[in-house]
């Protein structure tokens, strides 16, 4: 019986269509969730860093705490919302990849918001007077600060990606682990484990880690290239 590494490599080499479908779905769900979380979370985190309002401290603490939201709880909340018996049931989104994207976005968003808030707050302290002198008020400063903090923010985005690609609780509940439709790497690993196919489960885990490693290496490379060009 092959060891898990050999199994992993032969699975990839064979281009097994079932496996490719599962990998494709996992990437699609998580990357889409990352994209949405960034589109919402980067400006939100920056706004939180720059704005002053009563209760700001509580909001910051809340987002920090939500970084630790258990995936299965996030999944449960989305499930109750999207269930036919729930408020958004008429959208018929339960047990679809879209529901999985929603749940994962909820998991990634607090990470992006909190880390962005932290980075932008530090940058604002450094840049505030000069930016105001140059003619940029708080609102105008947001895109400037986000771009300036891009290296640190990228780390936050990668952390968000890591959290989403690693979780199984949320996608299992809202996706239903339907073969060929909502089965991802992590839910497939859960399934094979429950079947006792531990070797295959480990092999799938290795493949998942190889994907994550490749993605992080690509991000690092892109960062280095950008640093060389722009400093």
């Amino acid at each position, binding site marked *: 019986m092959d060891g898990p590494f050999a199994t992993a490599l032969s699975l990839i080499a064979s281009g097994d269509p079932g496996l490719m479908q599962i990998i494709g779905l996992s990437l699609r769900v998580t990357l889409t969730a990352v994209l949405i979380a960034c589109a919402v979370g980067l400006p939100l985190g920056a706004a939180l860093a720059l704005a002053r309002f009563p209760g700001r401290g509580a909001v910051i603490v809340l987002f920090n705490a939500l970084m630790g939201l258990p995936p299965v709880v996030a999944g449960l909340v989305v499930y109750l919302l999207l269930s036919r018996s729930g408020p958004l049931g008429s959208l018929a989104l339960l047990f679809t990849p879209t529901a999985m994207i929603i749940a994962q976005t909820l998991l990634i968003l607090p990470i992006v918001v909190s880390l962005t808030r932290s980075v932008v707050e530090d940058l604002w302290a450094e*840049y505030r*007077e*000069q930016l105001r*002198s*140059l*003619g940029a008020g708080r609102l105008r400063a947001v895109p*400037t600060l986000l*771009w300036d903090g891009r290296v640190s923010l990228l780390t936050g985005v990668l952390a968000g990606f890591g959290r989403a690609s690693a979780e199984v609780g949320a996608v299992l509940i809202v996706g239903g682990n339907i073969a060929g439709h909502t089965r991802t790497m992590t839910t497939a690993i859960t399934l094979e484990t429950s079947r006792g196919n531990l070797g295959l489960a480990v092999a799938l885990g290795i493949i998942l880690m190889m994907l994550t490693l490749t993605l992080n290496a690509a991000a690092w490379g892109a960062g280095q290239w950008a640093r060389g060009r*722009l*400093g």
Partner: protein
Amino acid sequence: MRAARDVSRSVLPLSLEGVGYAVGGKPLLSDITLRIEAGRRLIVMGANGAGKSLFLRLCHGLIDPTTGRRFWAGGEDRAEAQAMVFQRPVLLRRSVAANLNYPLVLKALPRAQRRETVARTLERFGLTPLADRPARLLSGGEQQRLALARAWAMRPEVLFLDEPSSALDPSATRIIEEMVEQFSAEGITIVMTTHNLGQARRLAEEVAVLHRGRLIEHRSAAEFFAGPCAPEARAFLAGDLVW
């Protein structure tokens, strides 16, 4: 060379009347009254903690007086056509050219004009070979030169400088001073703080001295260096410690 400004629409003179600035009830500046006229080079001096930086920020509009009035030529509380350079240059994490471009984008200048202005500014201050270099990788002197060039590119009427060369070596300091002199020759009003007496002698046309948040001297440079009135100012000139 810039075209002469239409003086009737200048934002100067800047007037402070009985201006004070207090934080948490504690007055950091008190009872400051002076006028900054157009085209002059005003050097502001004082011991550490005297309030020079606060004074500069208050004039520029980064902070507002808690007592008294600040107003520009037209009576308004704030004005555009100003720029400020800080002790440590604050540059964005992008190229030299991009840093020059940034304030022009804020002013919503059209792209062609921005490109032309950036090129002209790079040329004027010998920064063209550094145009694509990441600004943060420049030496301290080069960064401050860039900060001044950026301020110049904004076509300010008045330029505030907060100890711009105190962190630099003598040759870089000289470059900065030359730039200030050139700006002044073009008609830009200069308001600069320094604790370097030699620099003050070299650059000042007018001198103001702050001591514990109060304005204790404001005279022409010639009169001041001949013999200041206030005893604290005299002690300061003599190099004695003045708290």
